[in-house]
């Protein structure tokens, strides 16, 4: 029991990072109807921006903020400069997914061309380990969980109680109807890409704070878990992303602890495949059904 609690503790930390990333990824799909395979690379870029700030003497929190803002700018520019023109030009799903892939490659290997394949890490303040109900978490990890809970609450308030949030949900379910009701879809989409960029930045930087290594493939490797969480929860649904993240995060760490660390990803991927076979629309299916991801 003791060990189970320990791994669940680790799982909650992973789930927190996943949750922030998965909300961002799923929002992008909901608004723009595309799978942004450059999302992981954006996370890495944010983590490197934070690394530059951190190495220049800023403390980690200021770096976290700057990294997230950088990712927001990058995400906005990607949508406006590349994805949107392509969407106007073609309806081919393949073109869009390959474009996001190409952009992801350029960002990821651009970073590798500059920094090489070396591992970096942040200078964090002195932390200590806290013991709670059999779990062991460091103060940093506790803050990571706090950031995730904060982000989830803010997203919930945004989506439920603001005009922007309601418009985002409307566009995700039926873009044409939303447009006909007078919702400025372009502005909503721009805002969504900025918000999801902030989330990808938060996820990228907190991921590095947790695992304490950063290289050019950090974000892209973690990204697949984010996809798993978003798809499991129901692609396009932010609440689904939260549910999916908790399941994937806890299952990944518990199976890593009890079975074999090497099988950590395999277990979560296997869950994903089973979900795709049995219920391809995921747990919360409203957006996924509207976009006909499965027939």
């Amino acid at each position, binding site marked *: 029991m003791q060990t189970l609690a320990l791994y669940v503790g680790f799982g909650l930390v992973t789930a927190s990072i996943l949750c922030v990333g998965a909300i961002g990824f799923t929002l992008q799909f909901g608004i723009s109807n595309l*799978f942004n395979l450059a999302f992981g690379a954006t996370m890495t870029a944010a983590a490197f921006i934070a690394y530059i700030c951190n190495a220049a003497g800023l403390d980690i929190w200021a770096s976290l903020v700057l990294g997230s803002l950088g990712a927001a700018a990058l995400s906005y520019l990607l949508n406006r400069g590349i994805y949107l023109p392509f969407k106007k030009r073609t309806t081919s799903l393949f*073109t869009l*997914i*390959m*474009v996001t892939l190409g952009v992801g490659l350029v960002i990821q290997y651009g970073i590798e061309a500059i920094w*090489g394949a070396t591992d970096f890490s942040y200078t964090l303040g002195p932390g200590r380990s806290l013991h709670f109900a059999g779990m062991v978490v460091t103060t940093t990890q506790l803050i990571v969980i706090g950031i995730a809970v904060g982000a989830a609450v803010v997203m919930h308030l945004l989506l439920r109680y603001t005009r922007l949030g309601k418009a985002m949900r409307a566009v995700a379910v039926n873009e044409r109807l939303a447009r006909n009701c007078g919702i400025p879809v372009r502005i909503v989409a721009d805002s969504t890409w900025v918000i999801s960029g902030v989330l990808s930045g938060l996820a990228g930087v907190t991921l590095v704070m947790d695992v304490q290594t950063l290289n050019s493939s950090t974000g892209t490797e973690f990204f697949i878990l984010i*996809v798993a969480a978003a798809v499991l929860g129901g692609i396009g649904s932010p609440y689904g992303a939260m549910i999916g993240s908790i399941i994937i995060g806890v299952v990944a760490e518990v199976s890593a602890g009890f079975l074999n660390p090497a099988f950590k990803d*395999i277990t979560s*991927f296997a869950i994903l495949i089973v979900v795709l076979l049995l219920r391809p629309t995921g747990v919360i299916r409203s957006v996924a059904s509207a976009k006909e991801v499965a027939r």
Partner: protein
Amino acid sequence: MSSAWQFYIATLVIYAFVYIIAASGLNLQFGVAGIYNFAFIIFQAAGAYTTGVLSLGRPGSTGLQTYILGLHLPFPVPLLVSGVVAGLLGVGVGAVTIRRLRADYLAIALLVISLIATDLVTNATGLFNGATGLSLIPQPFASVTSSSTAYDWIYAAYAGVVCILVVLAVRVIIRSPLGRCLRALRENENAAAAIGKNVAGLRLFVFGVGGAIAGLSGSVLVSFTQAWAPSSWLYGETFVLFTALIVGGVGSNLGPVLGALLVPVVLAEGSRYLPAFGAPTLVPSLEWILIGVILVVFLWFRPTGLIPEPRRVYPRAWRAGGADENRPNLVDDDQRVAQGLVAR
């Protein structure tokens, strides 16, 4: 020519043939049938590993490698079995697609399958020697000649024969009524199903045949390089092949050939022999950046590739359909068939 140059050129030729075989298989799946198979490389890997374990002999006879089976079968058998194994794997993976997912959603699922496969083979060391991979895989024609230069050219000829057979086979499929069904599947799956095409069966077929072709390419490659490890078939390789198809021309006969010559061979294999500059990871990362840029640029400026798929118009069917002669653009006949506009 010095033997070093001959080795270099023979190697490039062999790689070119392997990439052409693989690109033709992917063209059948993606270009013709419209399936975004982001797991394509695992079928090449399946072929390569099959050839490895079928020609290495008993585990323990060649260093400290652990792997399953461990047979030593004579030359053509490993090649053929590789094709069959990879084809069966293709049918198995294709079964995942029985649930009809949106094409890009399916692509993500296949990408995950590719990652699972890499993770499994890396961590289950008993299968194919884990992350170290198989090495010292015997050369099939070692007994023919003792000169290594001559051997390379014999091997290149063998790769060329397999390549030509595969390209011809794909060409036959593309031109046959079966190919027309596959294109109907690509253009409008619901309409294809509505006129009585067995959509699930066609998908399984194309997964099987494409997988088998990928398996052959893996077999040809591994008997030459004599080594195969998870790092040889990372999921990025699939995207190199997709880039090749996009550059060459999706769905056409010669597009994959041209694309395979331009993208992987010139780019990746050519630059391998460039003088090293900068950090050791600089050249590979520049290659990947270039692939990303090529992808985006081609999809924007020339999405049909250098050799576009020919428009297929059948005048007799067109007239029988009672079409308006003055209509400005002719609709692709396949599309009209799929839409039920042409009586069959």
